[in-house]
């Protein structure tokens, strides 16, 4: 006599497969888009900071005074979770920044960041010099 098994080995394999698919899709749906969303937020933060620094004239002032203290004062009241580093390069030399500043409470230790570049002009009488500001934003770990 052969015993009738309602649950066979096939069913167990199928159930395991179903669990695996559920787990993998759950991980995919929650983890990967969340990281993409974080990157998008960091990009927005970097873009906002760069735009406002430019509109405020802080970038131009920093180059003219050869000091990033105005920029540091500008971002001091921001949430401590936001970390930012700015480097300003002369148009002809991207090897060495003419000035650089990082938020005082932050260390450059990140897995996820957003970097944006923007060129701006520093007017000195009839002379116009071009610079590129590179801003990197990340969340404090």
């Amino acid at each position, binding site marked *: 006599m052969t015993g009738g098994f309602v649950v066979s080995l096939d069913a167990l394999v199928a159930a395991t497969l179903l669990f695996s698919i559920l787990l993998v899709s759950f991980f995919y749906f929650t983890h990967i888009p969340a990281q993409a969303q974080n990157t998008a937020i960091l990009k*927005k933060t970097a873009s906002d900071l760069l735009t406002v620094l430019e509109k405020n004239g802080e970038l131009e002032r920093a180059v003219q005074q050869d000091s990033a203290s105005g920029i540091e004062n500008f971002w001091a009241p921001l949430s401590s979770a936001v970390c930012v580093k700015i480097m300003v390069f002369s148009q002809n030399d991207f090897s060495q920044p003419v000035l650089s500043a990082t938020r005082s409470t932050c260390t450059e230790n990140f897995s996820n960041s957003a970097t944006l570049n923007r060129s701006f002009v520093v007017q000195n009488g009839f002379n116009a010099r071009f610079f590129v500001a590179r801003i990197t934003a990340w969340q404090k770990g």
Partner: protein
Amino acid sequence: MSPFNKNNKGQLFSTDLLFGSTVFLFILSLVILTSNQFFDQWFLWKQDRLRNETAQNISNALLYNTGQPADWENQTDLNGITSIGLAKNRNELATKKVQKIGELSSEHYDAVKDLLAASQYEIHVTIRELQSGNAIASFGQEPAYGKPVSAVTRIARYNEQTALIQVKVSEK
């Protein structure tokens, strides 16, 4: 020999069947429980993601767009306004638009939410001076206690000052 011989053993409630049924029911309940948990989590995650996206979209609309028509703040009512934006330039808010949205949202809050594509949520926007943290303007409805909230903070210029614009989107 007749198949209906009284001496044949009945197979319906055999040990195999009982064991098989137990294992089957155990796995079935496990599948149902896990699926329920999965779909609950997935629903919460999706709800969260949609709310976060709405908050992001509202902040973009307010900071980057002038609205449609661009001088919507001069209209006496909402007729003819197809979208609302507070910008006079990118990341630069127009004082008159901020005042007007405050007036409109106190009188026609639901219509303002519709124009910001957030009719299924509650929204609250606060503009604060960056350096002092003082609130300069706000509109909308504060989130109810205990409701899930998505908040986005953006930076812009307002009235020749740097301001933080906080957009809160909460479930109804």
